[in-house]
């Protein structure tokens, strides 16, 4: 898990410029900022893995893969006969 505090240096409708305490300049999507944040505010970001969701999405994906194989890869439609 990563947790950092950052100063909001500049703010526009899509991108904010954030500063770390060791002078890293970071572009950050405004949409992820909490409400009421202004230029000059200090924010706290926590970033963590979401293993549960990751597993769930992976399962769904591979289940659909099986379905596709079963639907079209086992006994597919016969090739079209062009003239009769």
């Amino acid at each position, binding site marked *: 898990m990563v947790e950092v505090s950052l100063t909001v240096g500049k703010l526009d409708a899509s991108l904010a410029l954030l500063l770390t305490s060791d002078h890293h300049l970071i572009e950050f999507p405004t949409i992820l900022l909490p409400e009421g*944040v202004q230029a000059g505010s200090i924010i706290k970001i926590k970033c963590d893995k979401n293993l549960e969701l990751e597993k769930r999405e992976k399962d769904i994906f591979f289940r659909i893969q099986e379905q596709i194989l079963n639907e*079209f890869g086992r006994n597919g439609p016969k090739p079209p006969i062009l003239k009769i």
Partner: protein
Amino acid sequence: MALTSQASIPEVKEISPGQCLDERLNRLKQINDLGPPDLVQLVKHIPNSSKNSKSSKNEISTFLYYTGVDTSNSASIAAHLNSISMIIGGDSQQLWFGKFKNWKILSATYSCYNAFSKCDIRVNIHYPGKSNTLILDTKNERIQESELVWLETYVSSVMRSLLSSIDDDDDINPVVECRHLNPFDNIQSLDLFLKGFEVLFFQGPKLGCDVETQVPTYVSNYLVDTFLKAIELTNSYDKGLEICYRLLDREPSVIKLISEILLKKNDEINAVQVLYDGIQERPRDSNLLIIQANYCLEKKRYDFALSCATHAVKASPSEFKPWAALVKVYTELGDYENALLTLNSCPIIPHKQEFRLKRVVSTSPEFMHLPLPNDVTLEEVTSLNSQDVAIEHESIDPSLLNLPATNLSSTFAKAYSLLTEIAHRTGWEQLLKYRAKVFVMEEEYRKDKLVSTSNLSSNNSRTNKNPLSDNSNSVKLENGNGNGNGNGNGNGLKTSTSNNTRISLDEESNIIEAFKKKRLCERWLDKLFMLLYEDLKTYKMWQAEFVHFQAQRMLYKKNTLEWELLGMVAYRLHNYKEASTAFSNALAGRFSIKSTKKLLNYYQNEKKKLNKESFNLQLNIKTSLSQITKAQSILTDKIIDSSVKLAVWNHRWYKEFNPLILSSLKETVGEEGLVKIQNQIQAKYATNHNGVGELMNEYFKILVNFKVFGTEN
């Protein structure tokens, strides 16, 4: 080159001898694509001229460009040069700027760019007899001949030939002084290319990739594109698969090519299995996921397609194609809000240009010898007068001529097509509502900014108050907006684009809150909405006029170019039926290359649909079988008609090779058999003198060479 005559070789006079080769070498330094077309320079003289004419008048040098020549070794290049020299310097005198001249060729030089090693191969013949070969790099230094350099040169030639011939009629400055030959007129030439492909496979990425791909990879680049095209044109699927399976051992991403070839080969079950296995091993291979998504779309399993496309995007979020696939899926699902949001996230590639053949020698029209080949003629096509076309051009409403959507290219064109597909389904008014729902509108943005700075708190949301969205009658689009001078177009139409809002807002962060749920519309997408508005306005007006004229029992008359432009509008808006009517109307006036190509495309698609229907028919009878058979037969006639005319037109412009004609004939022959088609052309188009039969037989010969299905009977 059976049909090559003096009249089918264009030439350009050089200002000073050898200048074209020098200029070419100078330009090569700056080339970073597949390179220019091959160049032939000829030094001609009149040997038996009388003594009193100035000797300098009796020797000139000329040049022309080439694609599709066999450049795999010095001997075959020399053979080609000899055949040109024999044609031009033969017994019959050349009609040269209005006079018959008894030119003989003193020397001929062939120059061909090797895009792999970035060098130029030159074969020079001094008549009689002496020939030599020289390879120069871009620093003008000699390079050693080797089998590999020749192979690279040959593959470079084939790539230029196949990739430049795809859609070249949008080129506003085409290289007319160029002959285009078929690079694959026999199986040996194809096999040599396939060998070259396998040898050079890992160098593919360095030659670049198509305009919709950001970063070339082993399986997405021009070399691979050429390979797939060659395989398809010559029906050589099994050869292609063999090579790919060998490469697969060294590079697992090649599984993409295998699945593509299987699908082209109509081997669906194997393709699906290959895709499945590939994705099990490489679940983040976006190429495979896109192919799978498109397959599921075709099978109308949109739920499956959504999973595939979503994962393709997650696997390659910086590439355009996965996003485009996802937009398509959402559109098919009728989820237009997500379709718009996804479209807005497409990573546009703004500055990339389609590969085009380009001149490397500057010249001007008065130096050009562009003869009219008289060995193949079809009155309607050959007699087209370019001056008449120019007059027609000038008589046209500029607003129709200058519709901005015409000039879209690369990912912008593709994104526009995705947008128009959505509009085609929702209609304009609904589209505006969806747009206002997902994107921040400009008034909204401005108002909020005003509010936050002046500390007012007016709550009446004017978000969707759009003058256009109030018009229930689409035709009124025009009244609602255009106020005569065209400047008022799109008034109130603007969203707040991300570019507009790069203003520093500093302490005014409240604004942000209002838009948390909405997205900023990218500037380019906003512009596409404007173009769509223009196109729709034109289209609706045309349709309304047409209805009005019909009601009044008046003739709705337009000239060819007008019909063609209206056809293009309809085509862009996915109204293919209306587009085909317009193109047909256009061709009723005179021949036009663009309308013919577009129609050929349309007929081919209609035919495919019919074939599918006729297949479904066998499963559950709904429509009358004879009805379908009749429609199929009409379409076949039309496809043949377009193909013949395209072939004649191409021949007139020194193009003996065009993949579009070849593939349309291939399909038709596959369905109807070679003999029937040949007879039909002979009966309907050929006479003893017009050469059309001979021209088409050149194409059929190639189909026979490659043992295409249908040529055996």
